[in-house]
């Protein structure tokens, strides 16, 4: 059974969002997504200063066999990307909820209202 962490927000595309404060969030992929992919061997992420748009592709997470697009759950500016994942992509499989991908400064905090709670996300996996 895949792990779902209480207190995070989730998208239907199997990303999680963690609120850091009123305008900043961390974005990663869920444990369910990580185990469906198998061993992650590469993450292709935007850099600080790039912008991401809600429901648009912002990068990819790749297993040996296939690339899966990452679909952004929020719009905003990338403040930081997780450099640790460049050298150690396997961190995503070890703990999907600490292996965040990008830190985003939100354009519109109301977008978070469209995301799922842990309870709601559990029902779709």
């Amino acid at each position, binding site marked *: 059974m895949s792990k779902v962490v209480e207190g995070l927000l989730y998208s239907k595309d199997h990303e999680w969002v963690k609120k850091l404060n009123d305008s900043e969030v961390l974005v990663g992929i869920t444990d369910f997504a990580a185990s469906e992919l*198998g061993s992650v061997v590469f993450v292709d992420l935007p850099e600080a200063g790039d912008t991401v748009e809600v429901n648009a592709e912002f990068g990819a997470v790749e297993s*040996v066999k296939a690339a899966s697009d990452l679909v952004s759950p929020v719009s905003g500016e990338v403040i930081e990307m997780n450099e640790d994942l460049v050298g150690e992509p396997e961190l995503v499989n070890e703990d999907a909820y600490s292996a965040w991908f990008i830190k985003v400064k939100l354009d519109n905090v109301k977008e978070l209202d469209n995301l799922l709670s842990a309870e709601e996300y559990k029902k779709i996996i």
Partner: protein
Amino acid sequence: MQEVKQTCLFNEHVKLNAKMEEFAGYEMPIVYKTIKEEHNAVRNEVGMFDVSHMGEFIVNGVDSTAFVDHLFSNSIVEKENGSVTYGMMLYQNGTIVDDLLVYKVHDEEYLLIVNASNIAKDYEWVVNQTEEFDVTVKNVSEDYSEIAVQGPNAEAKVLELMGIDLSGLEFFHFGNYYYENHPLIISRTGYTGEDGFEIYADAEAVIELWRLLVQGGVIPCGLGSRDTLRFEAALPLYGHEISDKITPLEAGLKMFTKIDSDHDFIGKDALLKQTEAGLTRRVVGIELTKISIPRAGYPVFVGDEEVGFITTGYLSITLGTPIALAMINRPFTKKGSNLEVKIRNKYIPGFVRDKKFLKKNYKSKGV
């Protein structure tokens, strides 16, 4: 939509918790644990694949040798009984119907091993060429199950677990053996770049052998690692490096044709014409200088010009670098040529290199 078939080992795969997916009309194991572990088991020790989905045809009759010579790109006439030969069947225009192995039983009997995805198309093609020849062709794919035992310890494991000594079996040769009362055909062949064997038998024997080998420590490997392994050895896959849009010359497989001999075969004229006109493109190796993963179908650029496409690519498990096979227009096929692969919205730099990414570890003489 046809019903998805299962091989005789389906229940064994389920017991081993394999991730199953449909491939070529069969529900096949993609991976049991991780592709990396399975890949490394074959490179360093010994692994085993269920390849029962492969197709088998038997050609019989007094004209068998002349018929196979006409149908098959490579030479078999001078080959001895018990030999296995790699080659292709071509359309008149020189593009590829399929690649296959030809097992020569004797002058009046051959066994052809074809790709699972092409069984129906190949059978129709082969039968349609028989008119001028006194031969019969039987599709025995349903009667033959197959496992491939691959890796440097394959010979030792087969001896230890099955009691069959294959030390005298030469590379690209086969023989008839028995396990208990089951007849087996075993060839020293494979699709991994390592030493190893392909074992053909009926379903009952294959299930028994699979269990015996798993219990004895042979690592079950799925189609995921089968692809990463064959790719590192630059062995072509139908639908990628070769297809009905690609000729053997473009695929760099001229050595598996007899165009320089006086033997005729279907497609030969087209290949001679292509040689005379000069090739416009060719499959090459590519290595990227920045970490990313070049996947099949991604376009390749030199400046603003699209010069080709990736046919297979991985972050190589053995080498750790991003490498690919790609169909590239001349003159950008020259070794050392710089190019860029478009990966999503980025252009990742790389260069053309030898496609022998890895030294093959075959036993005895090469093909």
